């Protein structure tokens, strides 16, 4: 996944290295010119105190500085790459700031390979933005059952499909699961979840269309308690974060079913708005983890980076296709390694 971003990022690390490398050629010549042409560098050094100190450092410590100017251009390129890959603008700014801080003013020992410095700076920035992953299986193992999981998100991000996928995933891991059909608004939603559950052999608790979702989900939790079921997956209708009454309804659902985990579902192809809505959902009803759907549509990973950074919540799964098995646990370390191609 994220091939597009990966190849671009690797190109950028290369270009950063080149820029920094360019500052080096001065170094051997300075050492060499010690006797024959010593006048020229000395003159330059007098004009430019920073150069003087640089040369000094060079000679004394055999180290040198990476200045802000050296990395300016590649960093602009890096920003463009991030933006083109749907990293939201404020988040891209933040990543650039971190890389710049990390790189500039750094004294570099001559023996130290450039590749490592640059990759480390990028890796640090990405890791601090992506946060830790979330292991649902061990969470359920270590938690009182039934574990109540509420799925939220805006319209059309794939909540219902994701609920079915997570149900299939948990079932495969040996847990018993029940689904609460909390989307009582959209036409066809009940039929949709029915078919999924039928195929997966999972019980669905539902009322008729237009029913109060809180009541449906309350029943689902009661059913799970009575039947000693491990996990309740609560589907909800998609809603926009700027609709106060729909958000109040979600708030009521939360009060009534009292979920252990609130999972915010969004699509990996969303652009800058991903940040705004993730923030609003987190602010109004909270979010403990994020699932990104439709990650197969693209090879960019911008939304993951943006959302994780904005609400500071771990990404739990990636949805990667239309089949029930198309869901993979998200591991930030692995994704970053993959993006930067460290193993290569």
């Amino acid at each position: 996944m994220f091939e597009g971003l990966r190849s671009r990022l690797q190109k950028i690390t290369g270009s950063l290295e080149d820029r920094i490398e360019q500052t080096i050629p001065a170094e051997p010549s300075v050492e060499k010119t010690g006797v024959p042409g010593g006048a020229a560098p000395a003159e330059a050094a007098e004009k430019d105190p920073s150069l003087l100190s640089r040369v000094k450092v060079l000679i004394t410590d055999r180290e040198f500085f990476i200045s802000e100017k050296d990395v300016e251009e590649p960093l602009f390129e890096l920003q463009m790459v991030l933006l083109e890959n749907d990293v939201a603008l404020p988040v891209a700014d933040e990543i650039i700031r971190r890389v710049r801080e990390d790189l500039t003013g750094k004294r570099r020992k001559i023996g130290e390979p450039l590749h490592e410095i640059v990759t480390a700076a990028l890796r640090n920035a990405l890791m601090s933005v992506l946060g830790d992953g979330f292991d649902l299986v061990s969470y359920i193992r270590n938690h009182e059952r039934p574990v109540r999981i509420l799925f939220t998100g805006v319209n059309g991000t794939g909540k219902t499909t994701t609920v079915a996928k997570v149900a299939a995933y948990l079932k495969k891991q040996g847990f018993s699961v029940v689904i609460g059909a909390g989307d009582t608004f959209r036409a066809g939603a009940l039929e949709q979840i029915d078919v999924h559950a039928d195929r997966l052999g999972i019980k669905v608790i539902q009322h008729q269309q237009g029913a109060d979702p809180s009541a449906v989900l309350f029943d689902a939790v009661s059913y799970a308690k009575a039947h000693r079921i491990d996990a309740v997956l609560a589907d909800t209708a998609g809603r926009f974060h700027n609709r106060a009454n729909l958000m109040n309804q979600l708030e009521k659902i939360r009060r009534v079913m009292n979920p252990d985990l609130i999972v915010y579902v969004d699509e990996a192809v969303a652009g800058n708005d991903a940040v705004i809505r993730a923030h609003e959902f987190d602010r109004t009803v909270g979010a403990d983890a994020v699932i990104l759907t439709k990650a197969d549509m693209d090879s960019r990973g911008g939304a993951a980076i943006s959302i994780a950074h904005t609400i500071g919540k771990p990404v739990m799964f990636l949805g990667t296709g239309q089949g029930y098995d198309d869901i993979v646990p998200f591991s930030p370390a692995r994704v970053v390694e993959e993006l930067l191609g460290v193993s290569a």
Partner: protein
Amino acid sequence: MLDRLGTSLKDAVKKLAGKTVVDRAAVEELVRDLQRALIQADVNVRLVMQLSEAIKKRALEEQPPKGMTVREHVLRIVYQELVRLVGSAGEVKLEPQVILMAGLQGSGKTTTTAKLARYFQRKGLRVAVICADTFRPGAFDQLNTLCSRIHVPCFGNPGEKDALKIVREGLKSLSSAEVIIIDTQGRHALESDLIREIIDIQAIASAQHRWLVIDAALGQQAAEQARKFHEAISIDGVIITKMDGTAKGGGALSAVAETRSGIVFIGSGETIDDLERFDPDGFISRLLGMGDLKALVEKAEETLAAAEVDVNAMLRGKFSLRDMYNQLEAVTRMGPLKQIMSMLPLGNMEIPEDAYDITSTKMQRYRIIMDSMTAAEMDDPSVIGSSRIQRIARGAGASPEEVRELLRYYKMMKRALKGVRGGQGRFNMQRMLKKFGGGT
């Protein structure tokens, strides 16, 4: 809606105020703000770079015409370039036709199909739809439920796995309909077998229109996806959905650029009537923070009897409680207040955020309170003193504080509308654009 983008653009434009010569630094700053604003609206990064280069070049090279200030000159260039970016509206003819819907999963094809059926039905055409989504469970039930509410025939068969067969049979059995809309399964550019399928569907249906449905929140992916769909079935129109959220729909502009088509409709709500014709000038005006009176009036004409909301009287400043009552009543049909307000030509006037922060339940309360007022009070709210407030509150079963809150809200709205009408001493966008003779 598009207000956030509008605000940052307005800020950028403000910085040009008072300059007498086009100064490079100011233009560069404007262009940089413009870039950031457009990128945050998900406009394709390459398109943004092209646009900003063009603006910079023209702003620095072209001399402002006589009598036009530097700000007007630069703004005019920005406006013209934005018009070029947005493109013109895709054509919608009211005649017998077959329309094929295409798009990514979850972009809102099925909902939009029903909305389109409603649109053509209202224009007096016999409409029918075909559900060719054989993959997603419940897809047929969804479309069938939506269509039966508006009495539009819906052809489909949830048991059939062959979409091509459904389309073939559907076209045959619905041959008496004038407009046939084919809803398809969501697919994306990398699913080559599904792309193949939609090519085959088009071969059977030979639809006059192939419309691509784009989620307003879609980011930089839009360009690539649109290109693939365009290669497959030659897209001739784009529909932006979910514009009632906070997404700005910039991704759709990349789709327009890729397909060299135009935006035909904008979906902005969950009910079947929440579909507007796309109006490029209006779209840009919203981008620039200038409202679009035309779209509002058009919509008002369609959904309301003329007497219900007199927009022109409102803009002349004759805004009484009665108008507000009618407005609140109309709101359920016209969409959220913010949406309506964003269509009013408010120029560079700021409406306090809390003016929008009124939920539908609150509106209900306001209407009940106003029901307890006399006709005289409705026409001239200034007569309402504290004893009248007491009476109204008792009559409506509300607290006096709620009545006062309503009056405060009324005053805020009135002030806001006054600003619209006046524009004295202020920068009047409406007048200015007129001077340009339509901008383009």
